[in-house]
């Protein structure tokens, strides 16, 4: 299943609800474009809801890292919400769990940007 991205605003935070796979050719470019567009518009607070993402490959992991660094370079922040077990395990295996700010509750995630 390809990646679908729905965007919504909550208290100054743009929440991207992602659903599907983030892999080479199936979502990594969509994610990159969505992040760049938001940062280009000056959005500083971005929360990626990965609750419906059950597959990320090495390219997708790279895209998450790129999103994080692109945001940081523009004084913006990207945080992750609602990791599935598979994605959680992948981030632990690759030590990226220590890099990202990861939340499991949307309300506290939104509050953490303030």
């Amino acid at each position: 299943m390809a990646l679908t991205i729905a965007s919504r605003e909550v208290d100054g935070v743009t929440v991207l609800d992602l659903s599907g796979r983030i892999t080479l050719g199936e979502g990594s470019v969509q994610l990159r474009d969505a992040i760049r567009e938001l940062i280009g518009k000056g959005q500083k607070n971005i929360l990626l809801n990965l609750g419906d993402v059950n597959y990320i490959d090495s390219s997708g992991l790279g895209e998450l890292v790129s999103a994080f660094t692109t945001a940081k370079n523009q004084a913006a922040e990207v945080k992750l919400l609602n990791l599935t077990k598979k994605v959680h395990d992948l981030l632990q295996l690759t030590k990226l769990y220590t890099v990202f700010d990861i939340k499991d509750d949307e309300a506290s995630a939104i509050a953490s940007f303030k």
Partner: protein
Amino acid sequence: MESVSEVEAAADKLAGEAGLDEDARFHVAMAVREAAVNAVLHGNEYDPTKQMTATFENTGASLVFTISDQGKGLDPATLPDPLAPENLMRGTGRGIFLIRSFMDEVHFRQLHPGTELTLVKHLAPAAEKA
């Protein structure tokens, strides 16, 4: 990338038929997908005149996947460690690491031209599966 998805789906099917549990099946399919992506992207560099070849076998004791490309060749010794602090924030370089993490054996063989990767997942004896 259609060929990559086909290879992934075939690996997933073989792993399922071999009785691997959901996690192991996921890992096998992902490792094979990563190997196929490497072959098409880094090996053949999307050159449509070059072929990626994949063969799968259930030996009874193991699942054996062989994926080869016709690229410039890959020396695994030169691959940076993606877990090293200086590499952690790189956008690439995790594919082979994931393959090694998910499979029981990974072998590289240089072709002329290209690289052949053999990925092996050992199957538990029937008595252990029960």
